[in-house]
């Protein structure tokens, strides 16, 4: 596999940026500690049982997804709402644009949704001169900065208060203020006007509940509640994999989501929304739509061995615990989703050869699988993807592994060859090399040496020692 595909310079740049390294490591470190304190055996004795239950419910739901989609549709309709079936991002944008035009809505407020990032919804809407304002504070900051989220749960974790102060004074015309509380109040003030004037509110959905025709949204700020309650139209956009069968299953999923994401037993607000306002209700939208998005999910569904990738509830725990993510951050991953989950779904959506290096950007430490609330076996899926990549492409590496396999299956030749290699290997200092002799300038060895010293073969291997014993 050619190293030419690995974005070496970008990775090196991120690693060399000590401020960024510190921001990523500290932020993820905090989230690690917070999660640990609320899933410990003392805090949550049945944590492992909950994970197993969540895994099973998701597996069952995915295996019968068509049934639950139909059930969701029936129940949404029964409560006065409407399902909109969208195969891709363009269809979603067309629907929203069509509706906005019909209703004369020019201003849209949005709450945080990775799904809408995935389909570049804001760009599409802005292209047609609709103002679509992000209302989650982190997302709002990113929107002003024209950047993409750095992390599933903490999107602006790479931004400092000084950068925010610059941004606000530049884009909002307010006085330059580095006090974070004041910055938050500014955003609150600006966005409140938007909430109250908007013609459409667009949210994502953490869960779609089939037996209730309901959308469940968890958040801490209150912007999703405002987005779904203030404007006369609420559109919830969600991937088809967000389904769960019963409202009662939330007892398991809500217990796992907040704890895994931010160490909160429950987030500040959990909204359970089913349909437009009912007769007798004083507020709430007049119209309620649930947009069901495929965008390649049915393709992932078809691969039974990798289908569990769709169980993801977007908690971000795998990102926080991944030693590779903690070094390279969110912007070095191609696609919308970063971290371990991104490393398994992006290759499935785009085809493994789109970014053949991605499944290899892992030491297979298993920290992700250990913390995934729905027990996705991410390392196993990475290994599956790796074998798919090498099947597509043969090179020197395959030749090398094949030769080694032959050698290792022929012990006497193996003993001979390794003994020769040890005999002619450079001695180094105390058995360690700082640089390579001219005859050993292999790329792999050079790469090793770029970071650390290289051990030389022992003068007497263990098998030689054993021989000499008898």
């Amino acid at each position: 596999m050619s190293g030419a595909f690995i974005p070496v310079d970008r990775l090196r740049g991120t690693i060399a940026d000590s401020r960024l390294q510190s921001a990523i490591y500290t932020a993820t470190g905090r989230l690690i500690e917070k999660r640990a304190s609320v899933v410990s055996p003392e805090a949550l004795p049945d944590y492992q049982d909950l994970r197993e239950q969540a895994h099973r419910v998701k597996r069952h739901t995915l295996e019968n997804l068509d049934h639950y989609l139909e059930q969701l549709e029936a129940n949404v309709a029964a409560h006065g709402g409407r399902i909109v079936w969208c195969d891709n991002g363009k269809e979603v944008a067309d629907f929203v644009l069509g509706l906005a035009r019909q209703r004369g809505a020019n201003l849209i407020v949005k709450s945080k949704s990775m799904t809408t990032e995935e389909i570049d919804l804001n760009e599409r809407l802005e292209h047609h001169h609709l103002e679509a304002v992000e209302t989650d504070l982190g997302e709002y900051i990113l929107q002003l900065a024209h950047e993409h989220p750095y992390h599933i749960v903490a999107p602006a974790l790479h931004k400092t208060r000084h950068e925010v102060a610059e941004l606000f004074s530049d884009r909002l015309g307010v006085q330059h203020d580095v006090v974070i509380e004041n910055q938050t109040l500014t955003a609150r003030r600006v966005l409140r006007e938007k909430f109250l004037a908007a013609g459409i509110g667009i949210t994502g959905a953490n869960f779609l509940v089939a037996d209730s025709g309901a959308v469940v949204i968890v958040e801490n700020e209150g912007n999703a509640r405002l987005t779904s309650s203030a404007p006369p139209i609420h559109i919830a956009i969600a991937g088809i994999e967000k389904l769960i069968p019963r409202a009662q299953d939330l007892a398991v999923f809500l217990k796992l989501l907040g704890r895994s994401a931010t160490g909160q037993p429950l987030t500040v607000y959990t909204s359970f929304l089913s349909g437009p306002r009912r007769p007798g209700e004083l507020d709430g939208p007049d119209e309620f739509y649930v947009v069901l998005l495929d965008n390649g999910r049915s393709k992932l569904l078809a691969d039974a061995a990798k289908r569990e990738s769709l169980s993801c509830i977007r908690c971000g725990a795998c990102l926080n615990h991944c030693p590779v993510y903690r070094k390279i951050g969110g912007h070095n991953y191609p696609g919308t989703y970063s971290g371990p989950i991104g490393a398994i779904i992006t290759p499935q959506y785009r085809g493994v050869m789109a970014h053949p290096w991605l499944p290899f950007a892992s030491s297979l430490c298993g920290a992700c699988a250990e913390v995934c609330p729905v027990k996705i076996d991410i390392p196993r899926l990475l290994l599956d993807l790796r074998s798919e990549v090498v099947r597509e492409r043969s090179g020197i590496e395959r030749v090398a592994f094949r030769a080694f396999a032959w050698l290792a299956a022929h012990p006497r030749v193996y003993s001979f060859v390794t003994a020769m290699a040890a005999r002619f290997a450079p001695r180094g200092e105390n058995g360690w090399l700082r640089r390579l002799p001219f005859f050993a300038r292999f790329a792999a060895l050079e790469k090793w040496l770029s970071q650390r010293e290289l051990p030389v073969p022992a003068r007497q291997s263990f098998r030689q020692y054993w021989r000499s014993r008898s």
Partner: protein
Amino acid sequence: MTRGQVAVFVTCVVDQLFPRVGIAMIEVLERLGYSVDFRERQTCCGQPAFNSGYRDEARRLARHFIDVFRDAEYIVIPSGSCTSMVTHHFAELLPDEPAVRELASRTWEFSRFLLEVTRVEDVGARYEGAVTYHDSCHALRELKIHDGPRRLLANVRGLELREMDAAAECCGFGGTFSVKFPDVSGAMARTKIDSILRTKADTVVSADCSCLMQLQGAMRRVGVGVRTMHLAEVLASR
């Protein structure tokens, strides 16, 4: 008194680069009364090939391993990652072979062998030093090895065990990952080294030589003089 025979799989890294670890492991086992057998036809468990996506090549080596250790009552391995390759991943390569599951039940990582089969926590070792323990990823997460090595180390006379804050974080080796993504791998090693330095230990111990190779190589590069030792070497010390 003999406890019986143990077949050792030293691993290709120990065989070629760190034979003293294999020698130490044998010393400990013999001292405990085992007669040790090193089957010379052993080579590699196939993990590097498997982790790099070369399943056919890995399968070939898995078959070779099964053949070499066909009737060994106990197979003891001084490596968490090689052990988990045999006990957890051979089944993925050869799903329809009953020999694989049966093999897994006879295969032991070294510290677990001492604690669960030999049932000793004190092997009579002595090592004067402040030691911090690094949990290798496969040992920790696939084999659930955590307390065991610490109990063994706690019984070594003269040894002071200090816990580092990032004990369970990956050292950055990851097989070919270390050469495919050297900058990331090196950065991960340096994070571990910082954590090791905070303990002010003079020795870092692990149950996996590949981790020690990564850490020792990285420490030498930045001029850190902390010693690395495999658990077997500490337990063989007198």
